[in-house]
């Protein structure tokens, strides 16, 4: 494999507090050297002057829909969407058909990703068999096969004892338990955030307490069991505060927030816009601001997309019966950079939330640019202006609420293990 020299970029790697104009030499898929004025006459030169060079971005919450729901997305199209958005590692959720509740499915995903994928894929195991909430998946073998975490994403583990046992069982295997925090009895048949907008539109609401109550339970179970809990897609002010307090107590808790929850509110549902329908739902401005605060003060560890591709036939229907979820891989980076432009967080924090923040939350062996480590990098043009066109997305599905949005900042080159997997002219 030919060596590669990335020259003159501003290298930001929050995992080692690095922020400097540096050259990076890549040999055999690894970071060989990182320093000033590096030379290698054999290497392919990549001019990164004026650009940002970061560890490859990491998204720990993606639905690849493969196996079983390939009409929405598959491992090829989903990972292409990832690298186009600057991501070099993604973790995929187990709610496929069949569910990733045994090592055979995990191996299928990893083999297909090795063959047809464009980036690294880390499958997440289901906590319970078939996402039924009734009996534990074979978490030991799933860990051996390559699952770093387990989640019944899309469904909460409703039974508190089941969740307790899952945490106790997962802990010695070093697995993270990911909570989809939702009390279904409080959700009922709700389809959007409960508040003035749901009242006006005549749509059934989901109150914030549905999330807060479940988050509180799972934090306490993590404290009881000592298992690492990661709370997925935090959407409420109350959940952010509960996690902030838990961290202060030293509880083994991390969490993530999505770009749509820190960018949009339930106002986006007006007009019965099914591309603003997701779970958890878009919340109030107060909640959105609390998430921004959590991103800034360190309460929230990671930005994750909850990339949830759905076919147009599943969205082009009445709001009540539309599927939940939006695609997010190709809009996450500019929306995160918008937080920097709006002075919510600084650039280093933004990159942290997209690299070592998520990788540490799930214990993934990626997210930094240490010499000797895998050469996964993203080169970002902070000034590049572009407009989102849903029809142009690399994902098979086009269900984005950001169609037509003017963005600033884009990944212009994505490198996985020393190979360019995506390049924007």
């Amino acid at each position, binding site marked *: 494999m030919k060596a590669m020299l990335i020259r003159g970029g501003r290298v930001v790697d929050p995992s080692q507090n690095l922020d400097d104009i540096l050259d990076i030499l890549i040999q055999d898929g690894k970071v060989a050297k990182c320093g000033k004025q590096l030379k290698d006459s054999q290497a392919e030169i990549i001019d990164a002057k004026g650009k940002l060079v970061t560890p490859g971005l990491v998204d720990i919450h993606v639905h690849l829909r493969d196996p079983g729901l390939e009409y929405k997305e598959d491992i090829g199209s989903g990972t292409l969407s990832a690298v186009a958005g600057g991501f070099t590692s993604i973790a995929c959720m187990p709610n496929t058909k069949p569910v990733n509740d045994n090592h055979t499915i995990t191996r299928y995903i990893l083999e297909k990703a090795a063959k047809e994928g464009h980036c690294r894929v880390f499958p997440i195991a289901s906590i319970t068999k078939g996402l039924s909430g009734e009996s534990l998946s074979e978490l030991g073998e799933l860990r051996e096969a390559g699952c770093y975490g387990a989640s019944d994403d899309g469904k909460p583990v409703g039974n508190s004892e089941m969740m307790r046992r899952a945490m106790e069982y997962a802990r010695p295997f070093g697995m993270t338990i990911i909570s989809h925090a939702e009390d279904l009895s409080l959700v009922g048949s709700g389809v959007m955030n409960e508040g*003035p907008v749901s*009242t*006006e*539109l005549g749509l059934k*609401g989901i109150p914030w307490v549905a999330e807060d109550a479940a988050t509180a339970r799972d934090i306490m179970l993590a404290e009881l069991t000592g298992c690492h809990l990661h709370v997925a897609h935090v959407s409420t002010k109350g959940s952010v505060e509960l996690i902030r307090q838990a961290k202060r107590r030293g509880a083994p808790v991390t969490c993530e927030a999505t770009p749509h929850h820190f960018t949009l509110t339930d106002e986006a549902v007006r007009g*019965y816009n099914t591309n603003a329908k997701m779970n958890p739902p878009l919340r109030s401005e107060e909640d959105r601001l609390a998430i921004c605060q959590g991103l800034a003060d360190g309460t929230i560890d990671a930005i994750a997309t909850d990339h949830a591709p759905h076919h147009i036939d599943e969205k*082009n229907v009445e709001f009540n019966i539309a599927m939940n979820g939006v695609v997010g891989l190709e809009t996450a980076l500019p929306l995160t950079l918008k937080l920097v432009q709006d002075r919510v967080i600084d650039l280093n924090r933004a990159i942290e939330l997209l690299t070592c923040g998520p990788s540490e939350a799930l214990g993934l062996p990626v997210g930094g640019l240490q010499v000797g480590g895998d050469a996964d990098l993203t080169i970002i043009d902070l000034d590049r202006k572009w407009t989102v066109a849903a029809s142009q997305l690399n994902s098979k599905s086009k269900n984005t609420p950001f169609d037509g949005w003017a963005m600033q900042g884009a990944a212009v080159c994505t490198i996985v293990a020393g190979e360019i997997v995506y390049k924007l002219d």
Partner: protein
Amino acid sequence: MAFQHKHILGIESLSREDIELILNTGDAFKEINGRDIKKVPTLRGKTIINAFFEASTRTRLSFEIAGKRLSADTVNISGSTSSVVKGETLEDTAKNIEAMAPDIIVIRHGHSGAPHYLAERLETCSVVNAGDGAHEHPSQALLDLMTMREHKGRIEGLEVAIVGDITHSRVARSNIYALSKMGARVRLAGPGTMLPPGIERLGNVEVCANLLDAIKDADVVMMLRIQLERQSQTLLPSLREYARFYGLNTENIKLAKEDAIVMHPGPMNRGVEISTYVADGIQNVILDQVANGVAVRMALLYLVSGVESMQTQ
């Protein structure tokens, strides 16, 4: 003033002038309903589809009679007889209907926003909302206003109590918009489980702690139907208790103004939200509402059809 709306999706998008025009037009059409030959040629050659995807007797009948009295051809389809049960999407059903070139689709649907969904996707015909989920029921609010104006001589300044299940009521929402735009004040009351958050932001609304506060000195008392089928849920302990705390009866009606009128969008649960003696009492205008419903729907069909602007040209 010409009517500018192609569709009637809700009261929210109508102005005070629009509402006044509809009510005035309704008043003018009302006379036809008392004639020996109850038919005018106004909409001759127009086709109106009444697409009722949710059960309805009164509203469908009212729209059908309204269309027929204007000489339009009216065709009814219902949820159980349409292709919806065969798995066809609402968009496909509507586009198939549109391909047969109707002029107006009147739609009743259980999903909030369904008429808006159709209006966005249909190219030629007008969409009239006959009730969508818990969102809006514009023709009901208009017939209510027409009835209030008839009995009270005005709408501006009226104190209107609306009592019952506000959360699930499209009648309440449309009335809140309409009454607020026309300068009336709305007081709401109902069980704590049936008062949605932020309802006061929809207009000139006061949420009252109980039925008595809401109806005290009111000019109009509007009782909403309590959905018997919701009893399996967690919203009410019993109809007996509902009747005791939120039912209108010969005693508590005395708190309202002496000349207050009593309204109900129907169908009534006698002995639950309204006692038989009040429902049949001297203050009730419930059948006037039904009669005005035909007139106001004639006005809506006439105004969205564009016939008016053609005649004035």
